[in-house]
């Protein structure tokens, strides 16, 4: 599942093809049928950082790979990419193996050899039982002592959200940290605790600035805002990180 830059699909469909189009059903569809897809490579984002962090020629498991948007750049680095997602993938040219799997119900596909990297990019906040999933991952044959897990999530303690909650506003949106499809919300601390409880240890934590270019376009202003945000993250990750990225391994 990609960064919550989601496309809003307004599809004129109802449950029964012959039934008249119900306004309510339509309203529900517009809100619900959001399929994440927009990637962010051009600026300092989770995707750019992850691609940079992954060494060439390694085996990568991308859990919640969406349309496989990370696969092409990783393929360029000579990586072997296995992807899983709840939705089928349209274009399999860049993904070496793909498994359709609902992380809320199915168990992870087990590889015969551990991966060098396991990616969980904005996935865990969509699960019904994140604790159970992380624990299952810990036991899975996909990882061993040498596997690096890269996990990202939105930061619910990002200061605009703190401020608006302080003043009584807490509204989910179509995208961002309070994306409607997020079933669990994390802070840097609670995300870390989730993994540490399952016996992972943190190698590194990074704070990631808000995706200003997605909002203001690829402008000088966006660049300035990104730089400012990065500077503030140096002062406080918990307060100013839009997203958090953890690099982890098993203890």
């Amino acid at each position, binding site marked *: 599942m990609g960064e919550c830059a989601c496309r809003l699909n307004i599809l004129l469909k109802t449950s029964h093809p012959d039934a008249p189009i119900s306004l*309510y059903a339509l*309203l*529900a569809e517009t*809100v619900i049928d959001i399929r994440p897809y927009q990637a962010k490579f051009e600026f300092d984002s989770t995707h750019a950082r992850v691609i940079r962090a992954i060494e060439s020629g390694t085996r990568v498991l991308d859990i919640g790979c969406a349309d496989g948007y990370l696969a092409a750049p990783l393929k360029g680095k000579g990586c072997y990419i296995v992807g899983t997602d709840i939705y089928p993938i349209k274009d399999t040219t860049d993904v070496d193996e793909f498994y359709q799997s609902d992380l809320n119900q199915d168990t992870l596909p087990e590889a015969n050899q551990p991966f060098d990297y396991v990616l969980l990019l904005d996935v865990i906040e969509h699960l019904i039982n994140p604790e*159970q999933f992380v624990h299952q991952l810990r036991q899975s044959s996909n990882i061993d002592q040498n596997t690096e897990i890269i996990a990202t999530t939105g930061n619910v*303690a990002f200061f605009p959200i703190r401020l608006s909650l302080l003043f*009584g*506003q807490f509204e989910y949106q179509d995208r961002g940290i309070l994306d409607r499809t997020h079933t*669990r919300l994390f*802070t840097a601390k609670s995300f870390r605790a989730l993994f540490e409880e399952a016996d992972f240890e943190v190698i590194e934590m990074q704070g990631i600035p808000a995706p200003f270019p997605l909002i203001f376009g690829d402008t000088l202003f966006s660049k300035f805002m990104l730089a400012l945000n990065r500077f503030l993250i140096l002062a406080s990750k918990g307060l100013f990180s839009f997203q958090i990225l953890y690099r982890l391994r098993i203890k």
Partner: protein
Amino acid sequence: MTKKRILIFIVAYNHAKLIESVLSRIPKELTAHETEILIIDDASQDLTFEAAEAYKKQHNLPYKITVLVNPKNQRYGGNQKIGFHYAIENNYDILALVHGDGQYTPEALPQLLAPILSGETDAVMGSRMADRFGALKGGMPLYKYVGNKVLTAYQNFVLGTNLFEFHTGYRLYSIAALKRIPFDLVTNEFHFDNEIYIQFLLAGERFEEIGIDTFYGDEVCNVDGFRYAWDIMKTTAIAKLQGTSMFYRQKYDLPLNKSTAPESIPSKRDFHSSHSSCIDDVPANSRVLNVGVDGGHIAQGLLEKGCKVSGIDDSPASTDIAYENYQQVDLRDDSLPSSLKDFDVIILGDVIGRFEEPEKFLATFAERARLCPELQIVATSGNVVFISNRILAALGRFNYGKRGILSRQHRRLFSINSLKSLFGMYGFEIVTVKGIPAPFPLLFGDNIASKALLAMNNFLIFFSKGLFAYQVQIEVRPRPALAWLLEQAKKETEARRLNPRK
């Protein structure tokens, strides 16, 4: 009777000099059972593994001895987990933990085993503090003695227990009980034993304390006392605060499988709460559909008012509640009955945020409710902008708990405003909005202090619902469907024809 299978599990770390003596002190009378000794050397820097192997070769012991060595140090708790796993895999009945340094006398094993063998209990904790000053006489350093007393007093106070000590490493477990607690989730550090103890308490497993003698020799202690004390204080507090919305740790969500059972949800009927308020607002003898039964407490209250209640939830029904009809559904699907005609009242009990797609649920609900616009619809929900959440979030804390506003069962969180606008979006009119105070009696017991806090909370709600309502209860009315209005017009016409106006 078949022989019980017993695993004597010796954890060893840099105990090359002591391990032989420990092995030689294991009582021979244990051969009455099917006994194995398992030694796991936790990647010692000295020759612990070799010493144990040499002992095994030189002596013709009446038991099977297995010596293993970890390639990488797993810490005190991590090493024990491997032994627990070994015992489960090899179908042992009982595991007895012995320390490789001989601090806990192996001679006491038969005495400590007895109550588990007889089925009287599931775990035995050998306590050094059962005899008042025995531990000191046995050479326990004073700082450890005092530390043990202070920490035990703290834990007894917080957990409401009355134990001699929480800190003993001399433990015997029935494997059946170990299988019932998620021991693999607890720490790998020195407070492993302590967390296992807390798991036993929370899971309601049986255990017994039996006094043992203490022998402190010249073994080196690897424990950092301050770190240990801090870990104990923290983990105990967290275990206690499971029930609030402040902390959640899966390892303390015990007993397993029972945490979502309806029986585990406490009733809030005896004070001003979402339960009592819903019960009060439903007229006697109504036909009620309760979606999200929240332990069945509202249903029970309504049954006492002569109502007929049907229930829908994702948990099984409590057997002692006489539902007309109960459906256990997955809250991901369309879980409503296709017609709501047979009901007078619908109660959505803290359930909207539990649906995977609340919008989809409300869309379906609206469509059906509009055909029965005389329905009384009451919905409750936590209020995410409750003052304590605002303050904690401002400080960067946003922790889900077992229950409460940030319950882990909630996939979506609402404020009063966002709940109102969600209903508004699907064509419902808001009739009333009531603020509900925090369930203080559940936290502090049914006493004067709780009553005063409830009264104060209610007073504050009068000024600001958004800030001070812990939960919100809203009553909504569906906008009538055109089909229904047309039907009404036809009926009216019929009646007018029969009784024309003069």
